[in-house]
C-alpha cells in the first residue's frame, strides 16, 4: 500500500511539474520574452499553484469536520460573503478608485473580500460555540450563503452596466490578474495557513470518527473545530480576495484525493490535495487559453472539465 501510494505521489508530482512547465512556457501567442515570462507567466503560475493548494485544503478541512463530501468553501457562505462585500465595493460605490495608489485601491477589493469572508466566518464560529450539531451548522452556512447571494443579486439588479460587468468578470475567477508582488503575497499568506493545518492533523484524524470519539481521545472538539474552520476560512478568504471565487476546486479535489489514495490518513490526504489542487488549476489555466481568439473563464473550465470526471470516478468507486 505504501509503495502504491508512493508511486501515485510520484505520478502526481510529475503531472505537477508538467503543469508548471506548460503554464510557464506553452500556450498564449507562442511569443515569449523576459517581460512576458516574469510579469505575466510567473505570477499566473504561482497564483494557480497557491490557489489550487489553498482551496483544496480549505475544502478538505470542511469535509472532515462536517463529515460530508459536499462541504466546501461555498456551502458555508464564506465565498458568498466575500462576493457580497466585493459587490458592495465595485457596484455600490461611485468608483473603485477611492484611495490613492495602486495597492490601496486594489487592496480595497482585497480587503473587501477578506472582510466579507471573515464576517461570515465570525458568524459561523460564533454559532459553532453554541451549536454542537454539524448538520445544523452546515445548514445555517447554506442559509447565510443564500442571504449573501440574494443581497448580491439585488446590487447586481440595480447596477449600471459598466460596473456590473466589472463585478461579473471578478466573479468569474481569474488566475492572471495578479502581479508578481500579488502572487508572492498570496503565496506567503497561503503557505502560512497551509502550514498551520499540519499542526492539526491529529484533530482532523480524530474528527473522522466523530465528536464523541474525538473527545474520548482527549481532543477538545469545539476548540479544534473553531481553529480549523478559522484556517479554512482564511485560506478561502485570501484566495477569493486575489482571484475571485474559483468554483469546484474546494469540493472536488479532496474527493479526488480520497478516490486516488484510498486511505483515511489525513497527512496523506492533505499532501495529495495540495498537489492535486495545484495540478487542477495549472491545467485549467492551460485549457482557458486553448482558443487563440478567446480566453475562457477559469470557473467554467474547472467545473466543466472537473465535474464529469468526478462523476465518472464516483460511478467507478461508489464509496467515497
Amino acid at each position, binding site marked *: 500500500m505504501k509503495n502504491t501510494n508512493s508511486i501515485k505521489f510520484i505520478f502526481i508530482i510529475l503531472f505537477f511539474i508538467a503543469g508548471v512547465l506548460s503554464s510557464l512556457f506553452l500556450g498564449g501567442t507562442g511569443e515569449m520574452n523576459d517581460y512576458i515570462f516574469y510579469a505575466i507567466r510567473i505570477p499566473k503560475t504561482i497564483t494557480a499553484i497557491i490557489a489550487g493548494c489553498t482551496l483544496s485544503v480549505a475544502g478538505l478541512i470542511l469535509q472532515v469536520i462536517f463529515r460530508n463530501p459536499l462541504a466546501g468553501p461555498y456551502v458555508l457562505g464564506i465565498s458568498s460573503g466575500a462576493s457580497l462585500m466585493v459587490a458592495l465595493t465595485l457596484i455600490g460605490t461611485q468608483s473603485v478608485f477611492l484611495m490613492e495608489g495602486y495597492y490601496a485601491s486594489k487592496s480595497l477589493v482585497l480587503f473587501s473580500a477578506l472582510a466579507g469572508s471573515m464576517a461570515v466566518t465570525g458568524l459561523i464560529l460564533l454559532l459553532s460555540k453554541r451549536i454542537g450539531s454539524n448538520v445544523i451548522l452546515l445548514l445555517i452556512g447554506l442559509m447565510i450563503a443564500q442571504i449573501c447571494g440574494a443581497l448580491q443579486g439585488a446590487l447586481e439588479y440595480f447596477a449600471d452596466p459598466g460596473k456590473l460587468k466589472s463585478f461579473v*468578470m471578478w466573479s468569474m475567477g481569474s488566475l492572471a490578474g495578479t502581479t508578481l508582488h500579488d502572487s508572492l503575497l498570496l503565496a506567503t499568506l497561503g503557505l502560512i495557513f497551509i502550514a498551520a493545518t499540519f499542526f492539526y492533523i491529529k484533530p482532523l484524524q480524530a474528527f473522522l470518527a466523530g465528536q464523541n470519539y474525538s473527545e474520548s481521545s482527549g481532543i477538545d472538539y469545539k476548540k479544534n473545530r473553531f481553529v480549523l474552520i478559522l484556517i479554512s476560512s482564511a485560506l478561502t478568504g485570501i484566495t477569493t480576495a486575489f482571484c475571485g471565487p474559483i468554483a469546484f476546486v474546494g469540493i472536488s479535489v479532496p474527493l479526488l484525493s480520497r478516490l486516488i489514495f484510498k486511505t483515511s490518513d489525513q497527512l496523506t490526504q492533505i499532501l495529495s490535495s495540495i498537489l492535486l489542487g495545484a495540478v487542477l488549476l495549472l491545467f485549467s489555466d492551460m485549457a482557458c487559453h486553448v482558443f487563440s481568439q478567446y480566453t475562457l473563464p477559469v470557473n467554467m473550465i474547472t467545473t466543466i472539465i472537473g465535474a464529469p470526471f468526478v462523476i465518472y470516478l464516483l460511478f467507478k468507486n461508489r464509496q467515497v
Partner: protein
Amino acid sequence: MISCDQNINVQDHTVKELFTDLRPVGDLKFAKRFSISENASLKMICLFGNKDPKDTSAIYYLIKDSTLKLSGSNKRFILNGKCDRIASLSSVYSTMLTELGETEKIVAVENLDYYNNPSLLEKNRRSALVELSKGPEIDLEKTILLKPDIVFTFGMSGSVPDSKLTNAGIPMVIAVDHLEEHPLARAEWIKFFAAFTDKMDRADSIFNETEKNYDKLRSMTKGVDFRPTVLTEIKTGELWYVPGGKSFVSTFVKDAGGKYLWDDVQQSGSLALGLEEIFVKAKEADFWLNQALVNSKKEMIEQEPRYADFKAFKIGQLYNNTLHTNEKGYSNYWETGITHPDQILSDLIQILHPELNVSENKLFYFYQKLKD
C-alpha cells in the same frame, strides 16, 4: 421595396390598391436595415431582420388618409398619422429626435442617469419627462398609462416586454441600427425616426451635412505617409475586449489615418483576449484610446500596474472619450457621436494626425488626453 403585404387587412379597398404608387422616401445611401416608402394614403416604414437583412422583421404603417380602416397581424403596426407622444428608450434615439426638433414630443425616456442632453435634462427639471426604467426593466404600468404613440427601443434590450405593450395597443419599434456596419449607416437612422414625425427634410439636411463633413475629413487622411498603430479599451477582470476588424472603432481609426491592430479580424464583435495576447500585439502601439471610465494615468495604474509597460502609456499618448460627462460619470460619446460620426472622426484625426490641422480652434468634441 415591398409591393404588397399579405398581413394587412383593409376595409373598402383591396390590399393591392393600398400599395399603388408607393415610392421610396429618404434617399438612403448607407443604412441597410430599414426602408421608407409612401403614397397618398400611407407611409410604410420597414425594419429588416436581425439575422438576414432581407428579412422584414416589422412594418409600420402611418395612415395619412383618415378614412382608411387598416388592421394588421404578424408584426404589422398601424399608426394614425405621425407620432406626437414618443417614449424613447435609448439616449442615441433621443438625441436624434431632439436634433429633429422633437424634444417636446418625447414624453418618456429610460433612465436620465445616462443622459447629457441639455434639452431633455431641462425638460425633466420642468417635470415634463417620465423615466421608465431606473433598473434593467421598464415599468410596464407606467408605460401603458403614459399612452405613448410609439416606443423606440433597441435590439439588444431583452428587458422590454414586447407583446404586453403591443397588446395594450402601443406600437414598439425594436431598432437594429447597431447592426449597421459603417458609422454613416448608423447616423443615417435619423431618417428612420424622422419618418415617424414627418421631419424628413430636416433629417436629410442634418445627415447630408454629417456625410459631407465625414467625407471631407476622410479625404484628408488618404494620402498620409505614416499610419500610427492604435490600441483600444482596457481590461475588465481578466479579459480585454477588443473590437473586431469590422467594428466602428476599426473603421474610425482607418478613416482617421491610423492602423487598428486588429483590423484583419473579420468580425464586428469583440475578441476576448488575455493581457499576454494584448501585450504581444500592442505593447508598441503608438496610441491608446477608449479606457472606459478612467480619467488619469494614475487610475489606470491603480487598476493594473502592468499598463505602464505599454509604449503608449510611457509616452503619454492616452486619449479617452470622456471630455464631457454628466454628474453620474457617463460621457456623451455614444449619445451624440452616433448621430455625428464626423465629430468623432475630427477628434481622432486631431489625435493621430495633428499636422493636418482639421480643426482651426483645436476643438475636441469627445476626446481628452488622460491626465497624469
